[in-house]
């Protein structure tokens, strides 16, 4: 074997070993293993502070450190997508083993601060799970966060003073313990999807990515 061929064979062997170490570590779910929509490139965890339903500041990045965090932008008068997402996540968290469920935080930021007072948001979230975090901020603050996550701003639909809908991003963003989002869950995500993915998201070691 010539020196060049020997070097090439060694390089190929090393590459094979490196690849197999990376893949057989089982650290992070392989593409296609998750039921959610895997992002082409991970999204850094947003760094913002809004007000929680107790009226206290909630620094999202720090408060959710070390948890799988499901971030959703919705509103309590939403007739369809928001309550379905919240109900499905809550139902699955109740069924998961406590050691898995306790490592998941659900945060909903209201896109309708005019109607969603902290009290109203708290009451609405309590109907699903009292542990769900509700955050309020000004429209500008919330739209800024949406933009930072490459999501469209929320849009008021309808002319009514109190009777209107909000057009908003329908996906739940799942931030993992590496403070990045690798996967999002669009409208239409079912309980079986959450039940399948949440344990994987909790157990995965994303540092190997």
């Amino acid at each position: 074997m010539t020196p060049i061929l020997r070097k090439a064979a060694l390089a190929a062997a090393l590459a094979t070993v490196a690849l197999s170490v990376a893949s057989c570590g089982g650290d992070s779910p392989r593409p296609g293993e998750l039921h959610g929509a895997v992002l082409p490139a991970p999204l850094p965890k947003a760094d913002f502070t809004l007000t929680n339903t107790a009226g206290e500041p909630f620094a999202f990045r720090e408060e959710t450190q070390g948890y799988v965090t499901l971030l959703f932008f919705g509103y309590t008068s939403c007739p369809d997508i928001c309550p379905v997402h919240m109900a499905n996540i809550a139902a699955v968290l109740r069924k998961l083993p406590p050691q898995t469920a306790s490592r998941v935080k659900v945060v909903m930021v209201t896109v309708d601060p005019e109607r969603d007072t902290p009290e109203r948001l708290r009451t609405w979230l309590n109907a699903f799970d009292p542990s769900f975090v509700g955050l309020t901020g000004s429209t500008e603050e919330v739209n800024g966060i949406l933009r930072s996550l490459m999501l469209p701003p929320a849009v008021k639909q309808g002319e009514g003073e109190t009777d209107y809908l909000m057009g908003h991003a329908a996906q739940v963003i799942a931030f993992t313990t590496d403070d990045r989002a690798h996967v999002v869950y669009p409208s239409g995500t079912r309980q079986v999807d959450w039940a399948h993915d949440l344990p994987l998201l909790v157990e995965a070691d994303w540092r190997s990515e």
Partner: protein
Amino acid sequence: MTWWCSAQDTAWEWVWQPYIGVWLLVASMLLGYAAALKRLGPAEADPPATRREVTSYLLGVLVLWIAADWPVGPLAAGYLVSVHTAQFLLFTMAVPPLLIHGMPQWLLRRMIRPSWAGRVARFLSRPLIAFAVFNVVLLATHLPVVVDGLAGSQLGSFFKDMLWLFAGLVFWWQVLGPLPELQPLSYPGRILFLLLNVFIPTVPAAFLTFADYPIYAVYELAPPLGWISARDDQQLAGIIMKIVGGFIIFGTASVLFFRWYVREEREEAA
């Protein structure tokens, strides 16, 4: 304009909606019956339709109307699986016996007079065929892929509803079919037929009641009504399927048993 109830993406509202297809079906059933009684009429040897028969037929059409029209129809099509199950029971366990009981024998004979109709009636009157038709329809129309696939389409929902009605008619013909020329089952045979049909509905009922997660996407992802979760709704559906369906079947079997007993007593006394 919607002509038949199907799943919608909009939030449920207690606002009446017209469903023209349901009205046309109900109207055609009423007009057809009235025309048959008036124009065709019984032969000289046949008794005319009794008040009881007419009342039974009208009740059957009324129950069908309730099952297919607003609010039961749209709630069943796209919002609550419990209402979907109740609708299934109305279409298969309530409407068919009322319609069959409401048909005078001479009218049934007229209907199967064409040779092809007679052949079809004789084929469907066989207990094993009736058992298979009813249970295959029951199982097939409760498969998630079928429920989710048909719910969003008016034509699909119509097809499923009519399939239920057809399966119910075939099923109840074994129990109530009055024509001797189609060789009806004896009382014990009818009771056995009913009891055998208790077991297979247990399969979808068990899935509905004991599944960890909602099995139908259409109901799980429907805009929620607010007072019942998808899981509770599904469990309620399973209970309705098992308990109400079982009650109808066991209740009918009990009535048949009582009639059989009375007839035997009379025959012995004679």
